[in-house]
């Protein structure tokens, strides 16, 4: 192979771009850190423990938003994981190939819907349904639990969690399905040969083999749920209170940024909001690294990007 100057030049020219990607990610971290230094220095760790969020006296604490993000993400996973893993098993193991392909394509469409449209649907379809039917029903029959008490507005933590669940479920399905399909066929055949039924094979062989990857998919979905902004902002009611009542309005890290960023008047206010952005950035990086490591152990480094869109 010839190795003239133009070739060397081309190689190093191209090499600039992946380095630029590394620089960009580092740059995001640096900019977030330096723009939020005001709030970091003033509040320190108290930022994560204080419940005061008062722009008038420049006192900021992020606890209600952290609480809201944890609560909605947890509930969303609670709803999305059984449905997602169940669907993935159905699509990978039971459905005839043509049906599986058709359903997968439709579920990919679900993943492609922009979150602002989920929000729109949430405001005009889900919220009235929750207010008039679902929440009165829950209040009547499960009202003895603290989760289902309190005034019923329709907007609130429960509605937001349901929307979140619908948004993250396609990610769980597409990755879990790919992971389940990597289980070698001989394992399944060995299990059938021992007289196991199909369901027993799924439980004891396939899920045992795929559980690390499925767990990775769930963590990845958790990352999505934590960072999801628009649909939640439109549905959750945007009120920084901390109760376990799922009917009450709440607030999340992402939605407080979306709502208040462009009206932040003081330096400190803006700095506090950017610090919340920094928290989101770090949490999502940690969650993603964890999830990718888990998924990579199963798929040996092959990106699922083109197959699953994540």
């Amino acid at each position, binding site marked *: *192979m*010839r190795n003239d100057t*133009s070739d060397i030049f081309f190689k190093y*020219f*191209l*090499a600039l771009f*992946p380095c*630029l*990607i*590394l620089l*960009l*990610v580092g*740059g995001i971290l640096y*900019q*977030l850190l330096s*723009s939020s230094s005001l709030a970091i220095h003033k509040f320190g760790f108290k930022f994560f423990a204080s419940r005061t969020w008062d722009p008038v006296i420049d006192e900021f604490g992020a606890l209600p938003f952290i609480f809201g993000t944890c609560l909605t993400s947890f509930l969303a996973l609670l709803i999305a994981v059984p*449905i*997602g893993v*169940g*669907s993935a098993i*159905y699509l990978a193991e*039971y459905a005839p190939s043509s049906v599986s392909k058709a*359903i997968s*394509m439709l*579920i*990919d469409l679900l993943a*492609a*819907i*922009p979150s*602002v*449209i989920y929000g729109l*649907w949430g405001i005009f*379809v889900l919220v009235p349904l929750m207010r008039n039917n679902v929440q009165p029903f829950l209040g009547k029959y499960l009202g003895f639990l603290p989760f289902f008490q309190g005034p019923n507005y329709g907007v609130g933590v429960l509605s937001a969690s349901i929307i979140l669940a*619908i948004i993250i*479920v396609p990610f769980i*399905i597409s990755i879990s399905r790919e992971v389940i399909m990597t289980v070698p066929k001989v394992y399944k055949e060995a299990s059938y040969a021992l007289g196991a039924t199909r*369901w027993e094979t799924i439980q004891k062989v396939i899920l045992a083999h795929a559980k690390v990857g499925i767990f990775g998919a769930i963590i990845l979905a958790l*990352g999505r749920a*934590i*960072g999801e*902004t*628009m649909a939640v902002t*439109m549905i959750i009611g945007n009120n920084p209170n901390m109760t376990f009542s799922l009917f009450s309005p709440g607030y999340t890290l*992402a939605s407080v*940024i979306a709502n208040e*960023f*462009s009206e932040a008047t003081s330096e400190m206010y803006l700095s506090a909001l*950017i610090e919340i*952005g920094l928290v*989101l*950035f770090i949490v*999502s990086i940690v969650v*993603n690294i964890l*999830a*990718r490591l888990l998924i990579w152990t199963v798929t040996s480094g092959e*990106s699922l*990007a*083109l197959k699953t*869109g*994540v």
Partner: protein
Amino acid sequence: MSTVNFDLIFERTKTRRYLWDKLIVYVLFLCSAILLFMLFSILSHLVVHGISALNVGFFIHLPKPVGEPGGGMANAIVGTLTLLSLAVMFGVPIGLASGIYLNEYANYRFAQLIRFTTDVMNGIPSIVFGIFAYVICVVPMKTFSAFSGGIALGLMMIPMITRTTEQFVRMVPNQLREAGLALGAPKWRVIVDIVLPSSLGGIMTGIMVALARVAGETAPLLFTAFGNRFWHHNLMQPIAALPLQIFSYAISPYDDWHRQAWAGAIVLIIVVFAINLFSSLFVARRNKFLGGR
């Protein structure tokens, strides 16, 4: 003294196991069915609510003030197209060059590092990209602008484009490269004249998928592009965008604006779905053609 009838026990558990095996299919199917129902519900509401507000005026008029009938989202549609073009100009060169470098030149460790970084970057919440664009663009220039919105969206496209470009470049058979090299072409000519043209279709698909993903993004535009009820005159001004307009109309208290929001949502979703369907058909055909990856 009774004896244990093993056959009977075996028969009973067997029946129970087989019954359970039959039932579970329906439970699992139900999981998928719920999701299909959700998709159906969202799409049917979009059509029912949106169609009535969708007319020619919607595509050629500016938004009207509250109370005046009519009005459209012409500026928002043009604004979204402008923002997407800016995003392409910013995101595609970086993603494309990185993808090619990863497959053609990079050593294993560097390639794994970049792959990992792009995968992680893919999971950063979109609103964080908005904050970044705000800090590096809006603050120094002291104005919300189309330019900063384009940067935010372009950044989000980079990881997707890098990974898909790398995958499609890898699909190009090595014999083609060797043939080029055997003819005495330097490696860069082989890449530019042989590898790129033969993987161009796939690369374009990757770009389209990335575009479809950022086309509906609202959060990173909230405090970069900001929105505008009139035409923009240059790229250093706030600019309207379809998702932003849908958002602000949806949370407004006016029925007329709600109808417009639904109409905007129909337009947005048709664009996004069309790109997605087209590219997944393309990928399916390509995979069949090349016998998988």
